[in-house]
C-alpha cells in the first residue's frame, strides 16, 4: 500500500498523466510539497556554499563575487518565494484546508491545477539562472538603480515573481471562496481550525498585496529593457518608491509565511496535548485579525536608514512596535494551550516545542529592530540576518516540518517517527542555534550582510567558522530528514487511522490517504463539535 496506489482510483498503479492532469486538491498539495522541497534543497545548497565562502575572510571557493551574489540571490528568492510560501500556503493549505472544513474539493479545481503548474514554471525559470550567462545578482529585493544597471539578467527575477505571484493570487481566490462557501454544515466561523484561519488570513494578504509587487517589478523590467524611467531619479523617477512598493508587499509576506506556520503549530500542540486552544477568539480576532490590520502600515521599518522623512520613520516605529500586541495575543494563546495539557511527545510535537523557543528568539530580537534609532546601527548587519532567519525561516520551516510529520500518516498511510526522525530533529535544532547565534553577536559588532569577503574585520573569523559548522549540521540533519520521509512514504510502518487521537475533521472523518471526494459520506457536525474539544468537561 504505497502513496500512489491509495490516492489513485481503485488500486491502479502510478500513472504520470494522472498526476499531470490531476485536479484533486490532495494530489496538487503533494505536487506543491515536491516542488517546494526541491526548491528548498537547491536553495539550501546555496546557503551551504555561502557559509563555506564566509568561513574565512578573503575569496574562498567562489570564482568571483558575482557568482557569490548569484548564490545569495537564489538562496533568498527561492527560500521565500519558492519554498516557504508555496510550502505553507500551497502544500499545507491545498491538502488539508478542504479536509479541515469537510469539503470534497476546492471551489475551482481546474484553476487550482493551473496554479500548481505556474508554480513549477516559476521554479524552472528560477533554476535556469544557473545555466544562463549573467545570472541575476540583485538579491531577492531587486532594488533599483542597481537592478537596472546590473549586468545580470533581471528579467529572470521579474518573470519568476510574475509566475509565482499569479499562481498565488489564483490560489488565494480559490481558497477564500472555498472557505466561505464550502464549509460542511455545522462548521461555524468560530469552529474553524486555527490553521484554516491563519491560512485564509495569509491568502487575504497575498490577494491584496501581490499585485503591488507585480506592478513594481514590471516597472523594473520596463526600466531595464525598454528604457523607461520609472525609478530613475535623473529623469523624474523616485529612487525610493520601488523600495516602498516592494516592502508594502514583502512585509505582509512575512506574515504570509508566519501565520500559516502558527496555524500548523496550534493544530499540532492542541492535538498532541489533547487540549483546547487557549482563548480561541482572542487569538483569531485579536491576534490574526490584528496582524491583518496593522501589517499594511509598517513597511517603512525596512527603510529606516533609507533617507525617508524623519517624522515618518518615527511614526512607523510606533506602528511597528504595536505589532507586538497581536503577536503577543497569539503567543499567549500558544503558551496557554500547553496549560493543563496532556502532551504526548513525538517528532511532530518536538518540532512544535522547539518552535516555541524559535518564535521567542526571533520575535524578541525584532523589538530592538523596531526602534528606528537602534536600527540605524543594526540595519543590514548579520544581526538582522539572524533575526529574520529565526522568525521567518527557522520558525516557519520547523512548523512546516512538524506539520509534515503530523500529517504524514494522513498523506501516505505510514508513520515517519523512527529513530532517524528523532536524531535528525536534534541535529537540526542544535544546528540552527550553532549557525545563527554567532551572527547575532558579530552583527552587533558591525558585520555587514551580503559580504563574500570581510578582510576589514578579521576578528570575526572564528564566529563565521562556527556558523559554517552549524550550517553543515543543518545540512546533515535535513539530508537525514528527507531520506527518512522518502523511505517512510514507501516502507514505513503502516499507520492506524487517526494515530494521534485528534478531533480535527481530517483525522476523524477522512480515511488515511483519502481518495477522490475525500470523505466516505457527507460531513455533518454536531452543535458542540469543535476541532479542539477533547471531551473533558
Amino acid at each position, binding site marked *: 500500500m504505497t502513496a500512489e496506489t491509495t490516492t489513485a482510483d481503485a488500486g491502479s498503479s502510478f500513472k504520470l498523466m494522472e498526476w499531470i492532469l490531476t485536479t484533486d486538491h490532495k494530489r496538487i498539495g503533494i505536487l506543491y510539497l515536491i516542488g517546494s522541497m526541491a526548491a528548498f534543497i537547491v536553495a539550501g545548497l546555496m546557503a551551504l556554499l555561502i557559509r563555506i565562502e564566509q568561513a574565512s575572510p578573503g575569496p574562498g571557493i567562489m570564482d568571483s563575487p558575482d557568482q557569490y551574489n548569484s548564490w545569495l540571490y537564489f538562496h533568498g528568492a527561492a527560500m521565500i518565494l519558492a519554498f516557504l510560501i508555496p510550502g505553507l500556503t500551497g502544500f499545507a493549505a491545498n491538502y488539508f484546508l478542504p479536509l479541515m472544513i469537510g469539503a470534497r474539493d476546492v*471551489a*475551482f479545481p481546474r484553476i487550482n491545477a493551473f496554479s500548481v503548474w505556474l508554480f513549477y514554471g516559476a521554479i524552472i525559470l528560477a533554476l535556469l539562472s544557473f545555466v544562463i550567462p549573467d545570472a541575476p545578482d540583485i538579491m531577492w529585493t531587486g532594488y533599483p538603480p542597481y537592478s537596472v544597471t546590473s549586468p545580470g539578467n533581471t528579467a529572470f527575477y521579474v518573470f519568476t515573481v510574475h509566475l509565482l505571484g499569479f499562481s498565488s*493570487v489564483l490560489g*488565494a*481566490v*480559490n481558497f*477564500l*471562496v472555498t472557505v*466561505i*462557501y464550502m464549509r460542511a454544515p455545522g462548521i461555524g466561523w468560530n469552529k474553524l481550525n486555527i490553521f484554516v484561519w491563519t491560512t485564509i488570513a495569509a491568502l487575504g494578504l*497575498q*490577494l*491584496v*498585496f*501581490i*499585485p*503591488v509587487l*507585480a*506592478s*513594481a517589478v514590471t*516597472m523594473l523590467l520596463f526600466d531595464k529593457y525598454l528604457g523607461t524611467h*520609472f*525609478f530613475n*531619479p*535623473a*529623469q*523624474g*523617477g*523616485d529612487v525610493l*518608491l*520601488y523600495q516602498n*512598493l516592494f516592502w*508594502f508587499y514583502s512585509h505582509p509576506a512575512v506574515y504570509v509565511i508566519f501565520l500559516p506556520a502558527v496555524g500548523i503549530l496550534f493544530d499540532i500542540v492542541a492535538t498532541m496535548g489533547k487540549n483546547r486552544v487557549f482563548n480561541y477568539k482572542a487569538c483569531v480576532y485579536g491576534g490574526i485579525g490584528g496582524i491583518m490590520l496593522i501589517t499594511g502600515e509598517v513597511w517603512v521599518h525596512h527603510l529606516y536608514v533609507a533617507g525617508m*522623512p*524623519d*517624522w*515618518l520613520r518615527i511614526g512607523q516605529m510606533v506602528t511597528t512596535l504595536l505589532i507586538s500586541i497581536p503577536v503577543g495575543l497569539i503567543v499567549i494563546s500558544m503558551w496557554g494551550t500547553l496549560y493543563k495539557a496532556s502532551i504526548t511527545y513525538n517528532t511532530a510535537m518536538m518540532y512544535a516545542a522547539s518552535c516555541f523557543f524559535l518564535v521567542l528568539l526571533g520575535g524578541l530580537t525584532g523589538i530592538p529592530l523596531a526602534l528606528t534609532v537602534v536600527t540605524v546601527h543594526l540595519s543590514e548587519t548579520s544581526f538582522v540576518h539572524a533575526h529574520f532567519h529565526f522568525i521567518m525561516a527557522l520558525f516557519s520551516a520547523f512548523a512546516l516540518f512538524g506539520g509534515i510529520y503530523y500529517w504524514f500518516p494522513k498523506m501516505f498511510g505510514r508513520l515517519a517517527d523512527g529513530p532517524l526522525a528523532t536524531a535528525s530533529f536534534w541535529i537540526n535544532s542544535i544546528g540552527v542555534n550553532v549557525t545563527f547565534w554567532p551572527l547575532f553577536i558579530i552583527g552587533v559588532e558591525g558585520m555587514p550582510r551580503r559580504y563574500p569577503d570581510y578582510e576589514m574585520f578579521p576578528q570575526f573569523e572564528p564566529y563565521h567558522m562556527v556558523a559554517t559548522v552549524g550550517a553543515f549540521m543543518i545540512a546533515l540533519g535535513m539530508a537525514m530528514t528527507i531520506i527518512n520521509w522518502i523511505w517512510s512514504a514507501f516502507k514505513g510502518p503502516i499507520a492506524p487511522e487517526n494515530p494521534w487521537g485528534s478531533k480535527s475533521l481530517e483525522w476523524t472523518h477522512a480515511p488515511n490517504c483519502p481518495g477522490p471526494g475525500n470523505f466516505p459520506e457527507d460531513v455533518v457536525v454536531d452543535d458542540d463539535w469543535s476541532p479542539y474539544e477533547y471531551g473533558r468537561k
Partner: protein
Amino acid sequence: MKRALRSFLLVLVAAVVVAGPMSVPVLAAYYKQAESDIDPEIFKIDEKEVLGVRMDREFSMIGAKGERFTLRDRLNKPLILVFSYYRCDGICGAVNQELLDLLVTLRDVGRVRIGEDFRVLTVSFDKNDNLQTLMEFRKSLQLDADMAPGWDFAVAENPEAIQAFAGAVGYRFFWSPQDRTFFHPGAFMFLSTEGRVSRILYALSNSPKDVELAVLDAKQGQFKASEIINFAASLCYSYNFKEGRYTYNIPLFIAAGSLTLGVSAFSASMVVFRRRRKKREDKEGS
C-alpha cells in the same frame, strides 16, 4: 465601443507627441535673450552637486528700509532666494515678475502662501546697486500689500562677499562689457530653514505647482499634522532633474491601481461560484 476607445487612445498619443516639444520653444526663448556667443550651458547650476549645501547664514544684507539683516534672520521659514541685479533691463525683471505671478496664483488657489509658509528674498549681486535702484526695481514689480511683508529685497552689505556667497551653491555671473550686461542664470533657489539648498528651479518655465512642490520639499518633512494633505499631495509628484520640473510619480498610480486587482478577482470569482452552484442546484431540483 472598440472604435471609440481606439480613437481616444490616438488622441491621447497625439496630445503627448504635440505637448512634449512645445516646452522646447519656451526654453529656447529664454536663452535667446543672452544674444551672445557665450554658451548658456556654463551657467547651468549643477544641481546634483549643490543639493544639500548650506549657504552662509551670516551673510549680511541691507534691506529696502536700510535695515541690516543676515540670511539667518530670514530662515524661520523655507526661503526662495532669487539672485538679480536691479539695473537689469532684461530678464531679472521677468524672473521676479514670473515668481510674483506664480505666487499670486498660489495665494489664491494654492496650498502654500507667501509669508505664511515661506518667504522670498531677492538679492542683488551687482556692487553698483543701491537702495535707490532697489526701490525702483521693487516698485516696478507692484507687489500686493499682503505679499510685501513676505518678500524682501536687499543688496549685499559687503558687495565683495557676494561672489563667494553665491558661488558656494554654484551660482556664477559676470559682467560682459561688450553687451553691457550681466550674464547669470535665472533661478529660484529653495532653501530649507537650515539654509540648505533643497531645490533649484529655472525661471520662465515653471507652473505654480512646481513652486508649491518645491516649497513643500524645502520643509524637509517638517509638516504639522494639519498639513498631512500637503504631504500626501506631494507624494504624487517627483522632481525631474532632466526637465527641471515636477512630473507625476507614475509608478505610485500604477501600484495604487494594482491594489484593486486581487480584490476584484476575488469578488468576480465569488459571483462565478454562486452562479455555478445555483445552476447545479436548479438542475438537481428539476
